[in-house]
């Protein structure tokens, strides 16, 4: 019997006038490996940040449901979460182990326990020899793997991964995917945000497609292909996100004076978020 572990109930998120997420509801079950798929600015990162309690929903709520069925606001039960942000967030002057230990201590985990667990997982990722090295010289892949070990050091129920294989070579990416699958088999819930549809198809039992701040589809890869009458997840994705995509960045809060000053120094009113720049302007690839 599936048990809901994390419940997103009619959650929307606005940043000023920008509606980053529009009324999303989602239940994440124990042992699910959920692929969060969407283009740039679709709202994936906003949803991930809502799931780990970094953002407060504008409406609705995100709750963690414990074994007894009691609901807790997510920010009160962060020790049940392990997060790998896209930026990895490692301290360059600390060793990989010191980075991991810092987070495990903040999770009230005994150093010895954290070390044993880290060593075991590091062996699976073939980086046990690098644990005592400063992360300053680490490649993107090494950083990703260290961040993953850090997220797992306190044995969380839910793992939130933002582009976990970004920058990894083929072999390392496969190791990470194998580890994620293993974690799912152990009954851990994994939310796996990615651009790579092939990867999502390989790793995830369930795909959630976010587009322009809305939930476009939620189901297994085969169900999504069946639903759209396509042969691949990529075709299904294209079919489900045919309307023009927007590029919403989370706007930084600005004072009125700063807005006035920006207008004065750029010589024009800033276009509202989502609006295309004028022809001749630079567009992100």
């Amino acid at each position, binding site marked *: 019997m599936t048990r809901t572990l994390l419940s997103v109930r009619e959650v929307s998120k606005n940043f000023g006038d920008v509606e980053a997420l529009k009324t999303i509801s989602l239940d994440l079950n124990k042992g699910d490996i959920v692929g969060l798929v969407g283009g740039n600015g679709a709202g994936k990162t906003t949803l991930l940040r809502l799931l780990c309690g*970094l953002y407060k929903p504008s409406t609705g709520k995100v709750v963690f449901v414990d074994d007894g069925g009691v609901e807790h606001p997510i920010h009160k039960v962060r020790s049940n979460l392990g997060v790998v942000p896209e930026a*990895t*967030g490692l301290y360059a002057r600390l060793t990989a182990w010191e980075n991991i230990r*810092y*987070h495990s*201590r903040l999770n009230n985990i005994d150093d010895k326990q954290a070390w044993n667990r880290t060593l075991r997982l590091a062996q699976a990722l073939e980086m046990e020899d690098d644990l005592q090295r400063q992360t300053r010289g680490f490649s993107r892949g090494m950083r990703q793997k260290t961040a993953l070990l850090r997220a797992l050091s306190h044995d969380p129920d839910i793992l939130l991964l933002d582009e976990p294989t970004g920058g990894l070579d083929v072999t390392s990416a496969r190791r990470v995917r194998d580890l994620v699958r293993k974690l799912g088999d152990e009954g851990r819930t994994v939310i796996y945000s990615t651009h790579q549809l092939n990867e999502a198809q390989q790793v995830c039992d369930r795909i959630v497609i976010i587009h322009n701040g809305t939930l476009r589809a939620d189901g297994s890869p085969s169900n999504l292909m069946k639903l759209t009458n396509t042969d691949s997840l990529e075709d299904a994705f294209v079919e489900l996100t045919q309307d023009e995509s927007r590029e919403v960045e989370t706007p930084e809060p600005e004072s009125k004076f700063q807005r006035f000053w920006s207008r004065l120094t750029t010589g024009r009113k800033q276009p509202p978020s989502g609006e295309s720049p004028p022809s001749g302007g630079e567009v992100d690839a």
Partner: protein
Amino acid sequence: MRNGLSRVWTVASKELLDFIRDWRTLVALVLIPLLIFPLFFIALPIFLQGEMSELDYYSLNLEVQIAEGDEFPEQLIQPFIDNNLNYTIENLDDGLTNLSVSGPDAIRLREGTPHVILRLQQTNTNSSESWNYAILYDATSELSSEGNSRMKGIIFDWEQKIIGLTLAEVNLTKQEALDPIHWDGDVSNANVATSAQSAGFALSMFIPMIVAIWTATSAIQPSIDLTAGERERGTMEALLCTPANRVELLYGKWVAVGVVAGTSVLFQLAGLLFAVAFLIPSDIFGMPTLSIWSMASLLLSVLLFAVFVVAVELALAVRAHSVKEAGTVLGPIVIAFIVPAMFAQFVNLEGIEWWWFVAPIFNVCLAMREALLNITDLSHIALWLGSSLFYAFIAVTWAARQFQREDLVESIS
């Protein structure tokens, strides 16, 4: 509660480890404060002395211009030789309105030929000998200035000799004529203040200022690194995902910045005391003797000030999205700490108005001054203690609010 304290300590110890690993931070916040006063008070004078004595070896060209009909005073020859001055004697231009008018000699002096000109014109007075004189030189030339300095010494000695001779003609000594009311004995014996009291008084004039300024400036870099720096490097997001709440993170970071800034201030004070003790004999300037009450008062005032300053700087830095932006904001803010700290040194403690002990920054600086002077005024203590606690509370509350900002997770990277 125990978990909270443990997390605060975890954050603080990690930040301190991070600081210790960065040798640049150690140099900037430990080594430089330790060396800055010894460098200024010991090394700089030694260096200047060396540079000046280097100039003593230069042989300089002196042109003596003497009025027509006056005889060159022979007693100047030996001093010219002793002072390494190669002199030539020329006639003084009789068209000058006074001896200070440089006229065409200005161009020659600027070109360094000669380095210095001495103009002499004998006058008739009741003195045994009487002269008008002027020394022309170029203040922007090191050699010309050196020539001017040597000439002034020679003229002074010559004048003293003439005064002595003039007084001798009327059977007077210089002391009888110029110092008829004179001090008997050693002036320093008349001061009843002990060397320890003198030290306390002297230190009270600048230690509060140094503590205030250095606390404010040394907390800037770590405050920025631990807040805007974390945001910029993208480490803040991962940190905010841990069970540590934001107030615990703030307190942990506060402890780390406070320890770094406090260490920096202590090292600077150690350097200052070493420099002062090196320069001034111990019978004049001893170690200040402070009562337990004064020492507690001094430490408490510094601590509360540090709470206030570090909280304000952390709050301002965490609002910034990048290290650059935080630096731009915090740089000018330091002026707000420095100016009152400087002014507080000149406030008269005698009959001081009560509100000085409530005014921010002034209150702590004046509290430190009173503590160093062993003054225990309970009403003053109540005022600065109460106001400092209030300011510290406001600053910490404001900092905690800044740490609750949702956009803290955003990073420009």
